[in-house]
């Protein structure tokens, strides 16, 4: 086997290309749902027959749902509707059951009651 310096350099380059530019934070679902990120905020949407759950992790830390309000906007019953989500345990917000088809867009926003800071994102269901 010939393994030249040139090949090693090429391998090193490919490793560099494959490596994330600024790697940090959660990017994968923690609860079996789908995720979308906005900056350093990770939103995870879990659609269950009994209801929809939204989990929010901000800069690797779960938010405190009870200190926030949350809304979800998507096609419901043939029209675009916005529903309020209820703060639940930890960083979870609960909403009604949704039938999400591939291609459906689900926009979410959480608002810190004290600071009024907003964090938002949009899921595209695959």
């Amino acid at each position: 086997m010939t393994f030249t310096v040139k090949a090693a350099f090429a391998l090193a380059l490919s490793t560099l290309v494959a490596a994330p530019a600024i790697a940090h934070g959660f990017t994968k679902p923690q609860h079996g749902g789908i995720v979308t990120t906005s900056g350093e905020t990770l939103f995870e949407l879990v659609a269950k027959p009994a209801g929809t759950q939204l989990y929010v992790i901000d800069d690797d830390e779960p938010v405190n749902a009870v200190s926030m309000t949350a809304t979800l906007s998507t096609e419901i019953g043939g029209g675009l509707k916005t529903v309020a989500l209820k703060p639940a345990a930890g960083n979870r917000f609960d909403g009604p059951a949704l039938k999400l088809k591939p291609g459906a867009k689900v926009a979410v926003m959480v608002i810190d009651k004290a600071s009024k800071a907003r964090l938002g994102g949009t899921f595209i269901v695959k």
Partner: protein
Amino acid sequence: MPSLKTILVAGLLTGLSCEAAHAHAVWFAQRARQTALIYGVGADDLDSVKRFNQIEKMAGYDADYQPIAATPRIAGPIVLVDTDQQPTLLSVVFFNGIWSRVDGEFVKGGRDEHPQASLAEKNYKYSVSIQGPLSKPIPALADQVLQIVPVGPIPEQHGANLTYRVLFKGKPVAGAKVINDLVNDPDQAPQTSGADGTVTLPVRNQGLNVIEAVYNGPTDDAKKYDRIENSATLTFTLAHAPE
């Protein structure tokens, strides 16, 4: 010795070239993860709080382009935008006053205050920001006298060409001056929109893109100003590689 005609033409051209095609504008950008309204040009992020009362209207739109409430709020030295749901679009109408050019300098006030002015103009600035994925083409928004809309999907990678259509009072307009990066290259030579209102430019940034169009409309009060200068920006963001 140059003729009178030559002197007049040269003088006119000099005057035109002194006139900045792309001056200050307004646009939406992220500041500390919040959506802010910026007033400035290039890297100059100027005092939007001082100009807060010049915000005539702010609006949000959902994915169906139905209006939702969007409210500007002073937060320390910047102006943030409050919405109760994630918007697909944000827009603003910003009145930038009446200005006259006197002895080569722009001063506040119209021709009624500066009868010797070589130019008097009323200035309006408009902006539309794409905040979420688009399901259909952006319509002409009623309050955006000058508006830039993308024609076709926005590419995922910078460097690709994107066609924009400039609308004046909801109709495609020829002759608008368009640049594709007001923040990082504000002095670039503008492209002029064609008869169908379109111009095609490469998307500059794998991040925030602020496109600006400038178009002068007719005056609606000839005693005070000769024209209405309209500036419109369109902003959108290309996602960076996954972390």
